[in-house]
């Protein structure tokens, strides 16, 4: 082979190479363009295309055949142009909680987001049956809002969610405000959340307590607290009683009103905050608890004491302390004999001091132990004085 033909072959090869590179480049460009557009085609949905809900309820009932069925209504916001918002109730019904999602999808026109909820409403039938099975699905869900508030309601949750509150798009927003702000006046704890439920259900010596609400003739109303034994609701207390229970129970600063009333003309109102300490001793016959409640606050109305000086102030403090002690002991009596649950969570203190996992039923132990209450009231301010 002479050199010229050799060169020719080389140039031909070069041209072939060029062509190859061109083809490869073309393919590369095609791939880049394709990926660019296909990436843009991924379903990106706006918020209007999702069912955004502010709260949901969990109901449980038995159908005619006797099998358990869950009914889980979502309160869904429907956005319209302008400031118009509506709420709709979308209910899923199925034999298990998770399957209600599937059932609900058959009735709704959007994909729903689970987890953005602010309020969970449990019906009395559910909490009477047991929360454990339902707690699992909430725990399993990584997207759920753990700070969501839980309330127990009378009757069907759907009615509560459907209830129209003027000025609100949906009732869960109103319920959230109700529960969150009841702690400023009624000695309510601020911890009625899902996270709290997990802890209470699973810790030795603790018991769950949740706000109990219903629709009265004037609207939505918190009427007291639901008491749980394990994962079942067994009883409920009225707001007046719940006040003193919370005072002894919650390990946090609580705020609310106290009063002494002799008759309709002579009364004294007091607004303050409370903090409690618990001492636990094991004696021969069992456990002995001492609860010390420190109350500090202001007198806001007073027609009981004509003059306010150092002496009457002391008198007032003593009278109020006595009143609180009396009401607390009344509650303890009722708790030990009627409810027979450790709703003051005293078992937790005893367990931490004398050992956990000993197989002790703290509800029973606390019901049979001696519980002493001591209240220390301190009046801070008396306002502008008596009128």
């Amino acid at each position, binding site marked *: 082979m002479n050199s010229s033909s050799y060169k020719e072959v080389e140039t031909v090869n070069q041209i072939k190479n060029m062509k190859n590179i061109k083809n490869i480049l073309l393919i590369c460009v095609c791939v880049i363009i394709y990926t660019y557009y296909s990436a843009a085609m991924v379903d990106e949905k706006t918020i209007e295309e999702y069912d955004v809900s502010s709260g949901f309820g969990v109901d449980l009932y038995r159908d005619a055949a006797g099998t358990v069925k869950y009914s889980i209504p979502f309160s869904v916001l*429907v956005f319209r142009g302008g400031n118009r918002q509506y709420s709709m109730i979308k209910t899923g019904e199925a034999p298990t*909680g*998770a399957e209600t999602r*599937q059932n609900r999808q058959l009735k709704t*026109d959007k994909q729903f987001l689970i987890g953005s909820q602010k309020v969970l409403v449990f019906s009395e039938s559910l909490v009477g049956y047991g929360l454990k099975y339902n707690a699992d699905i909430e725990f*399993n869900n990584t997207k759920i809002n753990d700070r969501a508030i839980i309330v127990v309601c009378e009757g069907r949750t759907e009615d509560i969610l459907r209830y129209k509150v003027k000025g609100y798009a949906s009732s869960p927003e109103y319920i959230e405000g109700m529960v969150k702000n009841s702690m400023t006046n009624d000695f309510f704890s601020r911890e009625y959340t899902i996270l709290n439920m997990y802890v209470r259900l699973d810790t030795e010596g603790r018991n769950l307590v949740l706000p109990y609400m219903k629709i009265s003739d004037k609207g939505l109303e918190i009427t007291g607290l639901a008491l749980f034994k394990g994962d079942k609701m067994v009883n409920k207390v009225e707001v007046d009683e719940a006040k003193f229970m919370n005072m002894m129970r919650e390990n946090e600063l609580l705020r609310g009103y106290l009063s002494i009333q002799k008759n309709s003309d002579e009364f004294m109102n007091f607004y303050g905050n409370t903090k409690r300490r618990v001492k636990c001793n094991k004696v021969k016959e069992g456990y002995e608890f001492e609860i010390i409640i420190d109350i500090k606050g202001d007198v806001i109305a007073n027609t009981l004491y004509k003059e306010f000086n150092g002496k009457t102030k002391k008198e007032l403090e003593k009278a109020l302390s006595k009143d609180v002690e009396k009401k607390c002991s009344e509650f303890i009596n009722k708790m030990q004999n009627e409810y027979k649950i450790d709703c003051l969570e005293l078992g937790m203190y005893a367990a931490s001091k004398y050992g956990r996992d000993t197989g002790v039923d703290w509800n029973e132990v606390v019901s049979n132990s001696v519980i002493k209450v001591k209240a220390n009231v301190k009046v801070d301010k008396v306002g502008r004085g008596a009128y």
Partner: protein
Amino acid sequence: MKKYKNIIFLIILIIFGGYLRTGQEKIENIEELDIAVGIGYSLKQDVDGSVKHVVPISSIVYKEDGVNVNSIKTGEANTVALSREDRQRKSDRKFFLGTEKLYIFEESVAMFGIYVPFETLFKNPVLNDDGFWVICKGKSEDYLKYKIQGYDTPADYVTGMIRNASSYNFFQKNYRLKDIYLMVGSEGRSLALPYIELKEKGFEITGMAIFNKDKLAAVLDIEDSKTMNILRSDKSRGMLTIEGNENDFINYNAKCKRKVKCTKEGDKYKFIIDLKFNGEVVNNVMYKKLSSKVEVKEKFEKDMAKKIEGRCTEFIDKMKNQYKDDCLELGRIAAAKYGRDTGVDWNEVISNSDIKVNVKVKVEKVGRGEF
């Protein structure tokens, strides 16, 4: 040059004339049109026995204050096309087709056969091929009339329902008109459409309507529909449950992929359907320590696969013996491999062939674990 001049002059004249002509065409305002959103279709039997086609159309009436009104205008005539004439007589606006999202066909229409209305739909070039198609129970007019607060028309709501149904229950996405043209026209394929009901609390998809050629073969309930959708679609999503007694259950939310193999032995066809599930355990009170122990996980995967397999074979038996319809579209696969247009009735062939289902289940996620 002169020759060209004339031609140029002529061209300019034509362009100018054309421009003026388009300017003269009347363009209507949106307020003067009936913008169709949903189209219903029912059949009515007259006293003398003749069948009347009833086509109600739901359209939005736009108003200045932004509150739109849903108006229903119904046309009744001896054929579908003639109903347009009848409808126009009752309407104060011009009908504007091409924006409709939903076609609601009554169950009775489906029983009667859908070729006839199909013909009319297919002929019409302005019709929206992306509209969804559903079969409904009862009168289609009631569905278009139903009021939902926050929505202009119920057709908007139902459209959303069908579009998002695929996120659970293993529903497919191809219930649009253009898909249905294909499903009815291709060999070895069969039509299956969502079946909706208007209940006390609103609309609900209660199952699937399956078709034999162009006629309704059966309406499946939701559990059967789920099984059929698993076996029918290449990719689907949904939730499955194993239930023991009352408080013993596990929920598994999964994506499913299907692959079908087809072989022929003599005259008999044999199908193997491979299903692969991949998903997340959503709620589990049945298998303790599922998230921490591999053996438990494997046991669950096995149990679940067995359960799905049982369910699938049960459905296939039902399909072969009761419906006698190829609602899994297996004929399509066989036809692709062994030749089309051989005059085979695939419904019959599938009913007599051997269908096997293999299921593989995989747990990908367990969430935060069990409580």
